[in-house]
C-alpha cells in the first residue's frame, strides 16, 4: 500500500481500486438490465433475477478474505493465485464450448448447402443441351 496512487486514492475513496472497479461494473450491468426491462425486452421476473445477481455480486466483492478462503480450499497460498487458476479453467471451458458450437454450425451450413444442391442444382448435361432433372 505504499504506492503514491493508492495513497491518494484512499484519501478520496477508502476502498480497494479493484473492489471499486468490480462494483462499477456490476452497477453498469444492473443498469443495462433495468434499461432492458424499461424497453420491455425482459420481463419483471428476469429483472428481479438480474438485480439479485448483480447486487449479490457487489456484496460478495466487499466480503473480506473470500479469495484467501477459496485459495485454502484449493490448497493454494494466495487468494490471487486461486482467482487466476479458476479464471483460466473458466476460459478453457468457454473455448471448448465455442469449438463444439462452431463445429456444429459448420455441419449445419454443409447440410443446408447439400440439401439446396440436391433439390434444385442437379443438371443432367448432354453435350451442349442442359436439361433439368425433375425434382425429387
Amino acid at each position, binding site marked *: 500500500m505504499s504506492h503514491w496512487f493508492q495513497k491518494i486514492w484512499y484519501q478520496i475513496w477508502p476502498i480497494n481500486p479493484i473492489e471499486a472497479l468490480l462494483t462499477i461494473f456490476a452497477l453498469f450491468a444492473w443498469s443495462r438490465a433495468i434499461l432492458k426491462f424499461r424497453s420491455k425486452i425482459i420481463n419483471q421476473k428476469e429483472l428481479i433475477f438480474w438485480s439479485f445477481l448483480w447486487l449479490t455480486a457487489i456484496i460478495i466483492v466487499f466480503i473480506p478474505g473470500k479469495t484467501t478462503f477459496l485459495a485454502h480450499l484449493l490448497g493454494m497460498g494466495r487468494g490471487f493465485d486461486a482467482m487466476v487458476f479458476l479464471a483460466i479453467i473458466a476460459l478453457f471451458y468457454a473455448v471448448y464450448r465455442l469449438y463444439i458450437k462452431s463445429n456444429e454450425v459448420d455441419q449445419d*451450413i*454443409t447440410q443446408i*448447402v*447439400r440439401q*439446396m*444442391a440436391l433439390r434444385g442444382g442437379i*443438371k443432367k448435361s*448432354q453435350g451442349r443441351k442442359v436439361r433439368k432433372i425433375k425434382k425429387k
Partner: protein
Amino acid sequence: MKLAILIPAYNEEKTLGAVIKSIPRRYPGISKVEIIVVNDGSIDKTAKIASKANVILIEHDLNRGLGAALGTGFEYARRQKFDFLLTFDADGQHNPDDIWPVLKPILSGKVDIVIGSRLKKIKNMPWYRIIGIMGLNLITLAFFWVWTSDSQSGLRAFSRKAIENIEIKSNKMEVSSEFFNEIQRHNLTLVEIPVKSIYTTYSLTKGQKNSNVFRILSKLIYRRFFSK
C-alpha cells in the same frame, strides 16, 4: 447394376475436362455408368466445363470442402439407389486404367470398400508427401484401429452396403480419415489395391499439405470423442 463415378471438384478447370473424357464408361457386369461431378462452389469455369460434358452436375452454392462434396455425392447415390460408387480426383492424379482393378473386388460382392493405395508402388511420389501420408496413416491407426497404407487416397470404390452406411460429417480433408471411422463402426471389409499416382506440378499444388496435419488431428479428436 448402376455405377456412379463421383468427382468432387473445386477450381479444377485445368484438368476436369480431360479427366472426365479419360474415364471409361463401360465395364463388364455394369449396365449403367453415371459420372457425377460435385462442383464445390468453384469460382472458375469448373461448372461450365462439367455442364458441357455428359455428366450429372451437382452444385454447391458455397465452398464447403472435400468432405462435404463427397457427402453430397454419397447422398445423391443413396437417393438414386446406385449399386456401386467410385470416387475419383479431379486433379488428374489418378490413372483411369486403375479404375477397373479397384472396381473388380467390389463387383465380386465380397468386399465393401476398396482403396487404391498409392504407397504400394512408391515410385515418383515426392518424399515429403510420403512422410505426410505415413503420419496420417499412423493417426488413422491410433484413432480407428485400422491399418492402411494410404489413408488419403482419392481413388476408392464402395459397395451398396458401404454407400448406405457411411455417414460423412467432416467438411474438409479430414474426411479421408473419417472413412476409417465408418469402416470400423459398421464392420465393413476393406481391401487395398496398388495404383499408380501421376504427380504433376499441378496436382502437387492441390491436395494435402503437411501443415494440415494439426488441423486434421484436432478435428479427428473432436470427431472421435466429442461429437454426438
